[in-house]
């Protein structure tokens, strides 16, 4: 599964469009990943598929780490995470996912804050 895996689909976005200085904003960070638990059999080869899962998501605001999430194989392949952040200024928010094989996916969005 991991051999031909191309990790492209991902997004990070705020749940509201108009953001004022000091607002607590909920962001969505979402991606798709096989999230193979290491217990399932491949239907074609009948062999156990090795563990293949997203192990970490890091969130940066203007390149400063603001929060992170550690996963195990029991997180869903439709990996949607929503988290809060108080925002004081405009800037770029970045999500960086890393799986257990070292594959990395990065997505970012620029947010504008009204004073």
């Amino acid at each position, binding site marked *: 599964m991991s051999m031909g895996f191309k990790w492209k689909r991902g997004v990070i976005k705020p749940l509201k469009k108009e953001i004022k200085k000091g607002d607590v904003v909920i962001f969505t960070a979402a991606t798709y990943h096989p999230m193979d638990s290491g217990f399932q059999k491949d239907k074609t080869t009948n062999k156990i598929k090795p563990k293949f899962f997203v192990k970490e998501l890091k969130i940066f605001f203007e390149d400063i780490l603001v929060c992170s*999430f*550690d996963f195990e*194989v029991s*997180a869903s392949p*439709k990996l949607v995470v*929503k*988290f809060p952040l108080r925002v004081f200024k405009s800037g770029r928010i970045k999500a960086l996912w890393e799986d257990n094989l070292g594959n990395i996916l990065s997505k970012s969005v620029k947010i504008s804050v009204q004073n």
Partner: protein
Amino acid sequence: MERRDFLKNSSFAALSLAGVDIFAKNVSGKIGFEEAYEDAIKGVKKIYKDSEKIKLKIPKEVKKGLVVPVEVDIDYPMKEDRYIEHIYILATKNPVAKIIKANYTFINAKAYLFVNIKLSETQDVAILARSNIGEIFEKRKRVKVAISGCS
């Protein structure tokens, strides 16, 4: 001499069996609920079970356990000196009980988390919210699962 041989052989057998067990545990990749729970509460001062500070939104029953939405909102200050620094979501019967650990600071300003999880069978989902001053707030809810999300 025979007795010595017997003891030597039985000790070896016992060690081998123990070795096999440890090996099996290490290679299985499973993380039981007790192990995950102990890891989450390590070093805490107080545990508040069935805490009303935690609002947990999760379906009572799902057809497929592959995508189960979990929403957690914790009523806690999130100030510089006092905030929720970790939110754990554990499942009591999944082969890997640990699902997610969220790492927050006061700048997140709200102890909130939404995530999709997998459930292998009908079981409890446990939320543990750990503050930076060593408190744990805990809440559990049972989810009925018709088709496993882990097979």
